[in-house]
């Protein structure tokens, strides 16, 4: 069980800011995205714009293999606009 955090447009599309999601411990970042989209299909429209932050490190959606522990934070990061 990881904690998925939603920000900005992804929070509007998912309709919430955080939730616990059950995923395999070893999973690619793209597979993780696909698991989350199964729960919130409306997120599919932003697939090409977002990246992840896993335990506060940026991860692109792709083949990168993640090893997730219970309670790890996975954040959906839409294009940023600070400053």
């Amino acid at each position, binding site marked *: 069980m990881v904690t998925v955090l939603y920000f900005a447009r992804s929070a509007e599309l998912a309709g919430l800011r955080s939730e616990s999601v059950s995923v395999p411990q070893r999973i690619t970042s793209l597979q993780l995205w696909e698991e989350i989209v199964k729960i919130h299909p409306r997120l599919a429209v932003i*697939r090409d714009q977002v990246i992840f932050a896993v335990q506060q490190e940026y991860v692109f959606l792709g083949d990168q293999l993640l090893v997730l522990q219970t309670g790890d934070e996975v954040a959906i990061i*839409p294009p*940023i606009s*600070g*400053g």
Partner: protein
Amino acid sequence: MDESEDVPKDFIKLKSEKLSVDEVSELVISPNCGAVSLFIGTTRNNFEGKKVIHLEYEAYTSMAEMEIKKICRDVRQKWPSVKHIAMHHRLGVVPITEASVIIAVSSPHRTESLEAVTYCINTLKAFVPIWKKEIYEDEYSWKENKECFWANSEK
């Protein structure tokens, strides 16, 4: 000021209250520094012909603070003479003309602090997980910095 306590410091704050230029610049003042350089990001009242009513900011706060700490660390590697760095960013509603970000850097001579401030705001816009929503009269828009480090990258 006790000279022995004047070690280089980073002052990082994300807050919903109005930012203060006086407060941020005073944080970085140092007896052996002859320069304080400052950047203030303020909210504009228009975008592509549309009237902007106000801005709203949100952040992945814990990660944003960490990314800002990394920027401070990078500044000290690139400009070792930099003394103090302050980066304050406002969250929540920011009315037109008010500051959304204030960055101040002190150094013995002006070149380093001027260059470091530029680096800070450019890198913040590329890497720090903060989002801005522009509120117009009839609609709103989530903004995207062109500096965003993964913008337009191949997936």
